[in-house]
């Protein structure tokens, strides 16, 4: 962007000042302060207490389960997201719009219902639940249910970030590659993916943050068994309800850090795309 000239539609300096101050003030009170309070509360009893809280064996157990959930749910998400984005961006077919709505569906469903559906499907009172449990397949109140619920809530993330990028890129590059003799897979790996790397990365970051931080859906299916079905957000809730506020806030800082990293990745991707466009 070159030097800005003064436009007749530029707001007067007073208006600019007041509105900017208002926006910063609202953001500070509504979002900034709560985050600051998490960090301050986590460190209230000193760095040593903080480190003790986040290295507590139960916290480590919760972290391990959270990492397992992320390690399964995010790759599943990537496979479906890439497939869906390819089909929906590069082709036109009847029912395309309906399919996009279906992909968005988990965004509209309450997290509690996202958990409930798996209790109804696999729980002890469901059609197949008793059979599964008799054969040693525990899904509800077990890590499998937590993973399923997480896949459900994170389903749209990668597809939703990738779709606009693939749509904007059009089909000509891929068609050129195919005409030059590349196979379909070569075209995807060497032409499509390099151009959509940023969007994919942003989608994966968002899916990871949500998978690690999902609370409502996971809360329904987990059964809150410490050391077995406790993820980090559930562990935070337990600590909080036991009035271990600084412990809860200490564990919460781990997830705050993850959220900030996610936003940083998305910001870098956007900045990169803006530079490419310029």
């Amino acid at each position, binding site marked *: 962007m070159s030097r800005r000239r003064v436009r007749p539609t530029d707001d007067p300096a007073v208006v600019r000042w007041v509105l900017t101050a208002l926006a910063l003030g*609202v953001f500070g009170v509504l979002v900034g302060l709560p985050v600051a309070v998490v960090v301050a509360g986590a460190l209230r009893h000193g760095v040593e207490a903080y480190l003790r809280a986040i290295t507590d064996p139960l916290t480590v157990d919760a972290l391990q389960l959270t990492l397992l959930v992320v390690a399964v749910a995010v790759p599943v998400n990537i496979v479906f997201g890439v497939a869906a984005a390819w089909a929906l961006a590069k082709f036109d077919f009847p029912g395309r719009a309906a399919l996009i*709505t279906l992909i968005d569906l988990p965004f509209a469903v309450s997290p509690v219902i996202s958990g409930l559906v798996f209790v109804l499907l696999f729980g002890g009172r469901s059609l197949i639940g008793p059979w599964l449990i008799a054969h040693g397949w525990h899904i509800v109140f077990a890590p499998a249910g937590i993973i399923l619920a997480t896949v459900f809530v994170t389903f749209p993330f990668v597809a939703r970030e990738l779709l606009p990028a693939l749509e904007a890129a059009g089909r000509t590059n891929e068609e050129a590659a195919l005409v030059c003799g590349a196979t379909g897979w070569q075209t995807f790996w060497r032409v499509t993916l390099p151009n959509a790397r940023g969007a994919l990365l942003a989608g994966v970051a968002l899916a990871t943050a949500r998978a690690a931080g999902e609370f409502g859906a996971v809360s329904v299916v987990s059964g809150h068994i410490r050391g077995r079905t406790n993820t980090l957000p559930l562990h935070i809730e337990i600590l909080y309800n036991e009035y271990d506020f600084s412990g809860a806030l200490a564990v919460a800082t781990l997830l705050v850090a993850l959220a900030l990293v996610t*936003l*940083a990745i998305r910001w870098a991707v956007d900045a990169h795309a803006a530079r490419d466009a310029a």
Partner: protein
Amino acid sequence: MRRRRDALPGLSLTLSLTVGGLLLFIVVPLTTVVATSAHLTAGRFWAAVASPRAIASYRLSFGASLVAAAACAPLGLLFAWVLTRYRFPGRRLLDALIDLPFALPTAVSGIALTTVWAQTGWLGRPLARAGVPVAFTAAGVTLALIFIGLPFVVRAIMPVLDALGHEPEEAGAVLGASRWQTLARITLPTLLPAVLTGVALAFARALGEYGSVVFIAGNLPLRTEIAPLLIMTKLEEYDYAGATAVAVVLLAASFLLLLVLNRAQAWTAERTGMTASRIG
């Protein structure tokens, strides 16, 4: 670009993966809720759906979501305007951090908001002394929902405002309109579909929101109990039928909203030639 024939491969593979994944992970599980509720007798279903406790929870959930989404409209306009039109130190940081409520785990948001607004908190204490308790009241529920909804509205408006540019307003100014006339007759009407889309997205999210609300709500039956929490409570009491019945009501509202949203987004696209919002 018109499509002549499919030179690109992979439609059958990717489409079957997409449809298969959707059926397996989304459609079949969701159908279970409806199928389970169909097993209930009409009387049983109605007793669960229309109990005084359930009615009170819908009233709070719909009411607080509506107020919060409406409050997000002016706030969203403020943030979108400042971020798009002004240049100030920290603008890019604010632009990135505005998504924080979306990226933050809901349980963390809930605890953080409660710590600030509870009667022992930094802001809750002076407010409670002034006779305005926030945490553990409907006001606290609304506050949490504003927090959650804000990024949806800001992100719906920003791309439209950015694409609008200064030219239409300059044309208005050149033709002799006052600044207020220009804003009221040119800018706001153009932004309206995007604002409504954002508000609907925020409302849809607020309706089902659980984690950021339960800590600050107080969760008293009939008073500060949101519908998603009622589902949770009924599940913990092993009242699967009751939980499912309330879930059906909430799901029906969400589907209806999704349809309205699709219409609103098509409207925005028609009016401005672009799609609003990337996060919803």
